[in-house]
């Protein structure tokens, strides 16, 4: 299969919906195939890459931070970016700047860009296919 450019638009905030898990699974599959994947995150999804996400322990179960090994989506996004690169493609992640400012999550992990809704349109224009995963 020749390299493709696929765009995904994500809306869901972290820790809230199975849609985020499914989106990450799709990105995982596409990047493993060496495709270039463009993600435009808007609304709550801009917090997926917020650098200050912190793991926590679980006092109820008596586990500290290390034992709990609480997953943070920023780490999954970083891992997907690394995987894309090692597979010969790239994961280009752009957050909607307006949505970022509204939520005060401007400190994103390295490699994350900032854009406007027109960048979503440009990404779709430049892609072989696009998928919007909206909130309900």
């Amino acid at each position, binding site marked *: 299969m020749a390299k*493709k450019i*696929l765009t995904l638009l994500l809306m869901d905030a972290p820790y809230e919906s*199975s849609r985020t898990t*499914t989106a990450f699974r*799709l990105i995982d*599959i596409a990047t493993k*195939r060496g495709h270039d994947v463009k993600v435009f995150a808007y609304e709550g999804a801009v917090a997926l890459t917020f650098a200050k996400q912190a793991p926590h322990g679980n006092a109820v179960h008596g586990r500290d931070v290390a034992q709990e090994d609480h997953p943070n989506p920023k780490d999954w996004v970083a891992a997907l970016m690394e995987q894309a690169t090692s597979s010969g493609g790239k994961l280009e992640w752009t957050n909607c700047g307006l949505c970022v400012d509204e939520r005060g999550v401007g400190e994103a992990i390295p490699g994350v860009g900032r854009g406007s809704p027109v960048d979503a349109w440009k990404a779709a224009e430049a892609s*072989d296919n696009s998928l919007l*995963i909206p909130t309900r």
Partner: protein
Amino acid sequence: MAAYLFIESRDPFDSNDCAQLWSLASSLAKNGDTVTLFLVQNGVLPARKSAKSDALSALAKDGVEVLADEFSLRERGIAELVSGVKKAPLDVVVDHMEAGRKTVWH
């Protein structure tokens, strides 16, 4: 004719508008278009025999390819599927996107 991939993530017992998507899929298939309905997350729940599952079997008879994400099925303990629904990996979605299908998430 066009080729469509509809991704159904919603539980029809929770979202009445699932029936609208199924109806659209059926109409397109009857029109001669190529249509796949991919069930994922709680969208796989009617793949288990229930009051809503006959509608999926009917879709298959109408010519819609009805697939259910095997990971979502495992998460929900669904092993036996109703007639017309087949297990499939999520990779199918990327396959269809690569092929340029019109892909719609619900």
